[in-house]
């Protein structure tokens, strides 16, 4: 069921989009990958889909983006009761700054530093894509509430 859901890749850099798509392609995921170029697009898309079943399986979210940053998008998602169970993987090219801590505080499900070494990067994207799109079963909001 999850496999039918798309993976959203939110990234403004065309190079990163191409490389990430290549890496995802490499692991032969069945999930369709939807690329979004900035945060506002994500917010609008999620708002439109919240409540129905067409939410993505996972969002791969770049931190540094124009207009609305990845961190802001993460905050919106994790503070929205309808969306907070949606898996979000933060992608960043830097281990620097307060970003890592902030992302975890806000409730990011994973934080992946894009390694310079491409092989490692491909491995990282593969792992993330496999885990969140295939292995990890996202609980329904209802189930979550009952589980508590």
């Amino acid at each position, binding site marked *: 069921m999850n496999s039918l859901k798309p993976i959203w890749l939110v990234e403004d*850099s065309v*190079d*990163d989009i191409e*490389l990430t798509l*290549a890496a995802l392609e490499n692991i032969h995921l069945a999930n369709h990958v939807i690329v979004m170029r900035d945060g506002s697009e994500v917010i609008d898309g999620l708002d439109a889909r919240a409540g129905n079943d067409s939410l993505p399986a996972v969002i791969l979210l770049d931190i*540094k983006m124009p207009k609305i940053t990845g961190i802001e998008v993460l905050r919106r998602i994790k503070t929205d009761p309808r969306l907070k169970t949606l898996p979000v993987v933060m992608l*960043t*090219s*830097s*281990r*620097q*700054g307060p970003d890592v801590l902030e992302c975890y505080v806000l409730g990011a499900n994973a934080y992946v530093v*894009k*390694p*310079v*070494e*491409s*092989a490692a*990067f*491909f491995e990282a994207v593969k792992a993330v894509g496999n885990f969140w799109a295939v292995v990890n079963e996202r609980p329904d909001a209802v189930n979550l509430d009952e589980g508590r």
Partner: protein
Amino acid sequence: MRSSRRKTERELRVELERVEARLHELEATQNAIRRGDVDAIVVEGPNGSQVFTLQSPEDPYRILAERMNEGAATLSADGTILFCNRRLAEMVKRPAEQLLGASFFSLLRQDEGNALRHFLESAMKQDVRAEGELLQKNGKLLPVQLSLSLVSFSDLEKVFCLVATDLNELTLAKRGLRQQNEIFELAHDAILIRDLHGRVQSWNRGAKDLYGWPAEEAVGRVISDLLHTQFPEPFGAIEALLLASKEWEGEVTQTRRGGGTVVVASRWSLLRDERGNPTAILEINRDITARKEAEVALQKSEDAYRKLAELVPQLVWKCTPDGLNIYFNRQWVEYTGLTLEESYGEGWNTPFHPDDKTPAWKAWKHAVETGETYRIDCRLRAANGSYRWFLIKGIPLQDDKGSVVEWFGTCTDVDDLKRSEEARCRANEELRELNQELESRVALRTRELADSMKDLESFAYSVSHDLRAPLRHIDGFLTLLSTRTYATLDDSSKHYVDRAILASRRMGQLIDDLLQFSRTGRAQIHKMPVDLNAVVRAVLRELEPESFERKIDWHLTPLPQLAADKAMLLQVIENLVGNALKFTRGRETAKIEIGCKPGLNGESVIFIRDNGAGFDMRYYNKLFQVFQRLHGDHEFEGTGIGLAICRSVVERHGGRIWAEGSVADGATFYFSLPADCGEGEQHELVEAHLAG
């Protein structure tokens, strides 16, 4: 005569004499009339003189009797009042008509009836006179002198003529005299009367107390023999003055019985008779010896204080409560150049600086109104025209009753003090301004630093993010390219692709190291006691992969506990031990020694020694520089950032780092850390940036 004013002795005497004289006169008239010595009587009345002849005695006699100032009556032998005048009626306060025919006995106290009877009997033989009292209608008794004469109109009918003289006035006069006498006796002052020859006539108790002689011994003696009075001026002059002005006053010195001397304030008054001729001198003397002595003592103390006032360096003054000056010491004259005459009174205001006159006057007014100490700083003009600052102080001197009699004060030259104080104030002000400027400069610099820190942070972020991203892309696309085409590439092409990938990774490493170095320089130091042994153990565990399958002779000695930032210290040790492992890689057996020795000022010096590749001391100055390497990449990999980070950490802890080595003969790296915990390094961040 009935004045409420107390009559003087002299007045009383005069009055007594007058009354007595009138009695005599009356008596004489009576006798004359009776004996027929006179033919007529002239009576002074309001309408002028009236002459009464005795030829027809009836009417004129009555008129005379009515006009008399004495009570008059004719009595029968049994005391019945045949006639009485109005004056007698007044004296007994009854109407005259009631008295006619009444018994004279009714005008007397009952117990005096016999006395009157006896009186009447006596008058048969001769004129009699007696004192008695008349009973007034209101019950009061009037003292009178009664004169009784027998006037025989016929042998059968014996008629007595009675004259009653009011003794009340006379008695009062006598009582007054007695009181005067008591006053005279009781007065503390010595009062004496002497005649014009100096012979003592009266001598009161005060005189006895003062001089020692009783009145009995003093009266009759010549006063100069007694008292040996010394006068302040020739006696002749005094006498002349006394005669001219009837009075004299002065201080004299006199001798007491037994030889002691007294100083007296003496007042003389010339006594004269009715015609104004001097008869005697009244002398009232008051003992002022004690006062004189006090005055002398006061004079002495005043002399002493004046001497003192002349000695002190201050300008000393005295003035009246009105602010009029009455004394200055020599220092005043010398300083101001004013003469005493110029300074006295209001003159002492002139040396005040024009700007100080008003405040000085206000302070003075306040002091005079409140009795508080007068105190003010003023500039006074010196003789040469320049001004100096003085502290002027004054205190009020009070008399016994607490009222201020004069002000006494000083002017103390405080010019030097004032000027140094001003200089100090100026210096303080300058210092304050300087501090303010410094503070604002520090604030500005801090702001600039904060700004540059922000710049640095955003730069670091850009470096890590923006510079690394294209590198990653280069690497990514090269990797994709090589994955797809590697098999088809010739060896050279493979080599180029591999080299390009390696170069991009190396640049990524350089960027990461640079960022770490900048982070180390900026991170806040959190000092705490750190056990170096534990740090070394942790480092060795961390570096285990490096020493894997190598023969290493570790030489570890116990290390001290130090105050440091644990994470940073770990970084230093890890770098140095990592270097030792790296540069001994070529040795069959690596020897690495980690130890400690005492340094200067209680410092601890930690050293890491190895038997590795060493280095050329000629390039020592490059050793701790960023990105400076003494070995090629083909020998030992590295970015040249490790030792630079070590230096930064050690120096920020207040220590030093240095090294010794020679090519192929190993190296020893030392770093020292201060003994104390180095507290108070709250500005680490700022300092680090200043150093950077």
